[in-house]
């Protein structure tokens, strides 16, 4: 009903442009804030690690330096040998990551495309392990692993427990990836061009979740690399259990610190390598 006229109405005055100086100042303050926060949090995480390093290099007399604690790790013969524990842990990390992704990626894509009503129940199932302490999980798993040990299978059988532990973290990473893309439109576009469901899932949806899949892989691998409770309680030896054995079997207290730092650095470097490789591949795709 109302006509678009200018009678009796004065247009609102446009807001004045901010002077450049104010914007530059604001940007400088924001950058300074970022550096301060980054430095504070960096110190929060870095200082304990530096202390760990210093104590691992402590000699027999207080205030002296010695690499004896590190030599002890290198010279440890077992049983089992350190290299064997490293090998098992790496295999567990790979197995856990792969099985987690093989289980979750197609399932989550399928649920998103075809059976969305199941998504809440599925989310609940995946997040359930977060509420169960590792030691309680062990109590439940012990009868199963006793049976497995009867067949003399290796510590690689731990991967089932690790997959369960990794579910919540991998689920969240993959769910974030699915939420970031228009799954419905992409799948309908692919189907209209002649793609069947398998093609839609693995040649259209999954390639666009590459970052999420990498994140899920990293989280699953990190969990497997750092897991101690289940392996120790079920009497298997992985890297963390081996490090613990080394520290227990020597009177040199510094070995405790060197083994902790060694395990941490090992996991950190491995994850950085995987992450770097994943980002390089992504940049190549772009």
């Amino acid at each position: 009903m109302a006509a678009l006229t200018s009678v009796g109405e004065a247009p609102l005055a446009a807001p004045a442009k901010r002077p450049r100086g104010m914007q530059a100042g604001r940007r400088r303050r924001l950058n300074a804030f970022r550096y301060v926060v980054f430095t504070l949090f960096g110190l929060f995480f870095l200082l304990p690690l530096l202390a760990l390093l210093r104590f691992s290099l402590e000699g027999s007399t207080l205030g002296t330096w010695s690499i004896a604690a590190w030599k002890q790790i290198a010279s440890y013969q077992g049983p089992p040998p350190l290299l064997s524990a490293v090998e098992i842990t790496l295999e567990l990390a790979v197995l856990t990551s792969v099985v987690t992704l093989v289980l979750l990626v197609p399932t989550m894509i399928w649920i998103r495309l075809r059976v969305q009503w199941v998504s809440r129940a599925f989310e609940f199932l995946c997040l359930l392990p977060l509420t169960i302490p590792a030691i309680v999980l062990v109590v439940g798993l012990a009868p199963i692993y006793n049976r497995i040990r009867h067949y003399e299978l290796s510590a690689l059988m731990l991967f089932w427990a690790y997959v369960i532990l990794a579910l919540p973290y991998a689920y969240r990473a993959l769910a974030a990836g699915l939420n970031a893309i228009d799954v419905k439109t992409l799948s309908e576009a692919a189907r209209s061009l002649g793609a069947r469901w398998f093609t839609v899932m693995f040649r259209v949806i999954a390639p666009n979740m590459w970052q999420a899949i990498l994140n899920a892989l990293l989280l699953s691998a990190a969990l497997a690399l750092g897991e101690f409770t289940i392996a120790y309680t079920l009497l298997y030896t992985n890297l963390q259990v081996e490090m613990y054995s080394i520290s227990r079997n020597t009177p040199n207290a510094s070995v405790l610190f060197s083994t902790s730092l060694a395990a941490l650095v090992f996991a950190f470097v491995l994850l950085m390598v995987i992450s770097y490789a994943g980002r390089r591949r992504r940049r190549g795709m772009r």
Partner: protein
Amino acid sequence: MEGLSRRYGAVVALDGLDLTVQPGELVALLGPSGCGKTTTLRLLAGLEDADAGTITVGGADVTRLPASRRDMGMVFQAYSLFPHMTVRQNVAFGLRLRRVSAAQRDRRAVEMLELVDLVSQADRYPHQISGGQQQRVALARALAIEPQVLLLDEPLSALDAKVRAQLRDQIRRIQLEVGITTLFVTHDQEEALAISDRVGVMQNGRLEQLAPPTDVYSRPATAFVAEFVGLTNRLPGTVSGSAVTVRGRDLPLVDVTTPPGPVTALVRPEAVTLAPDSSGGSGPLTGTVIASTFLGATSRVTVDLGDMTIMAQLSTADATEHPAGSRVTLTIRPDPVLVSADAPVESEA
């Protein structure tokens, strides 16, 4: 499509729709949100299953075929290019699924990109091109597989007005050049009227009218079509014989079998002209201009007749001769008018 029906729970999205599209024809489905036009398209594409009815393409019943086997190209409202593929790879995707050789795939992709004037963007990713370009690539991708039918689900609604107009004309040019049977869904009347061979106006899951754009606009079959397509003045009148008397003027009826009695006449604003009222009279078609809306080449002038308001659509040059507050006399062109049994709303604009 014959007797097509689809329900979502208690909501009837399509109610026994019958629609035939001729080979090479572009039919636009127009209607308000929830009228069933997108549902029609999705049933035709196979993205949803019909509760009843049949869909036949080129004589073959495709009702139960999955979407991947219907041989139809579709362009979506949302940007649907695959982000991890280049423009060229997107266009060639359907051909790759059909195991076309790499050389042929590339040749066809370039051909389609030339059709939409985007060869220079062939090696870019979707995030590196504009929205309008993305929709053109989507069109090239849909046409690359040489489908029997092209389906367009509001492909222009995410674009700004200028790009929308350009792309609309381009779509029509390409459709005529390729000669492909096309179903175009839109809620924008201008789009539907500008490019289609026939327009189907839908309401509540049914087709109200299916006719060429000029007929839909000038000879609306129902009151809904008259009011949905373009603007309409709803004026009280009385039917007598083959004419309706509106404000003392006799206007011919579209439907001469309308029974006599009071009705609401639906009169287009462009059928109303204005002249200065120099006599100072107070006749039934004399009033005061209360508003003038500038629309570019034309303007819409609203006149208060005392007991109601009426709109006239004039050239801007003519409209400036009747500023707000001036007294005018209206003339209604004697075009055939549609009437409705509904009572007019008190003030219409």
